[in-house]
């Protein structure tokens, strides 16, 4: 049993290495991206309407609006929506923030083969990149999507 415990320690240590390779220490820059809000979105006109909202139904199209000028233009960033299953359902980047200024609206896309957005919590995250991987969260918004049925 003691040998099994040692095997356990080795596995958990490998887990720590795994964790720190994806969450490296010393990456906090103190930068913050400004998310103006999450709004109803018209896919035809590609425009948002109404006020900042945190609850939608599965039939609603919605998008987050980011003020990319709130970040240094050379900072490599991306912004993505993750649905309740952790699936990426829309985003931009990674690119320097200065190149994303005209892509301030980031809509949620209905997954291929589906009729609606899946109900549940949606996480919108703006991340800073370094060495080809996301290393710091610069902004985050959470919205809730209710079932359409």
């Amino acid at each position, binding site marked *: *049993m003691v040998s*099994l*415990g040692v095997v*356990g320690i080795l*596995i958990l240590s490998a887990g720590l290495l795994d964790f720190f390779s994806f*969450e490296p220490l010393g990456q906090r820059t103190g930068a913050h991206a400004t998310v103006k809000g999450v709004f109803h979105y018209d896919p035809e006109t590609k425009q948002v309407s109404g006020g900042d909202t945190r609850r939608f139904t599965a039939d609603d199209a919605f998008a987050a609006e980011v003020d990319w000028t709130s970040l240094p233009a050379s900072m490599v960033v991306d912004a993505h929506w*993750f649905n309740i299953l952790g699936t990426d359902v829309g985003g931009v980047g990674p690119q320097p923030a200065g190149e994303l200024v005209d892509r301030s609206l980031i809509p949620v896309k209905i997954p291929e083969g589906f009729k609606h957005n*899946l109900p549940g919590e949606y996480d919108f995250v703006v991340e800073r990149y370094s060495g080809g991987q996301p290393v710091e*969260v610069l902004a985050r918004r959470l919205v809730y999507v209710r*079932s359409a049925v």
Partner: protein
Amino acid sequence: MSVDAAYPRLARPPHYKLAIALAGLLVVCLFLSSFVTSLVLGTIPSRISVFGLPVIALVALATWIGVRAFDRDPAERRRHLLRAGVILGIAFLLWLLLVDLFLFTGDAPLVALISAIACLPTTAFGIWVVRRLDRNEKEPWRLVMVAVAWGAVVATALVIWVNTSLGEIAASALVPGPGMDAFTAYGAGFFEELAKGLAVLLLYLVMRDEFDDVVDGIVYGACVGLGFNFMESILYMTHMYAIFAGEGFGAYVAGIQWYFRQVVGLFFGHATYTALIGAGLGVARQLPLMRQRVLVIVGGWLVAISAHFAWDAWLQFFPVGDGAFALIGVHLRTLLMNGPFTAVVLLLLAMGLQVEGQALRRQLELEAAGGTGTVAPAEVAVLTSPWRRWQARMQVLTLSGLGAYRRLARLQQAQLNLAMERWHRERRELGAPLDAEERLRQQVLALKA
């Protein structure tokens, strides 16, 4: 006549105090869990959570009565244990009804009910198989079901708020992706195994006379895991149904969850992890020094946490392929990622059964040679073979009916209990000197008469 016995009866030994302290800690955790859940979640779950408090009181009362029962004489003890079991059973049903059914499922209690009905036969089959594995001396159903109930109700209740809080922390502080997955996997592995393992630890501390060795530890541990898996399956089935119902294939996705949790993963997941904790406690049961006992218990716990962690954190890295290969891939993933740990459990079980079988044979032979009349020399071969024991019972059933079958089953069980008691005494796994062995001998003789 007073003979050294394996199990202390007269005074309350130190491990009882530890068990009482652990039970008290559990009650506090459950209370906090219910309170925090009521604050974190909305109004309807909040009401349900507050209504769930009587359940916590019932668990506390059952624990108190159950522990106190051991300070009473055997005739009284049985009545008090039964009372504790009934109260725990009521708490189980109430908790299932109030918390899991409504809190987890929101406005879909019917889906949860259907999921529970779907999971019952598979879980029952799992419990039956695990109990059958203990072929030399089966554990009593009441303790097996207590283990299942604690896994399903107490352990799940303990981890609801921990998992929720860890998810919130991860979401607010970490970059989505493998790092966050590793973080939540650490939380799930540590806290879920802690919550489940505590049930086995309490059985180890309180029920020494039914917790003999590594085999018993594996059986109790696996049963706690099966109980936990039962409740977790209901949770995931209803959750996935709610997500995909709007697309018209909620039932299909819930069915997939059922298949992977109740068929493919029935023995490979939680049952294996908690069986590893039970194995550590079972080995500790037969070690003489406290330092050795602590080492093996910690070793069992660590490997269980790491197995759980590895599955949760690294599942996504396993290549499952596309198309038809994906179907094979997802099965292979379970086999290759959890299979080695299940194989370790089976190896420990086989070794434990062999050692236990040899010890029982030797003790039965010694008892037969002692001439007390409890075991005849010809009975030794029958008692040490589960197959021959069953054959003997079936023969009696055919010749003399069900009553005779039951009497023989009780006699065989009492003879094996006596051999097990002798084995513990031989290994100096003793508490206070008592006459439990002689009482077992008298019980066997009474059954033979």
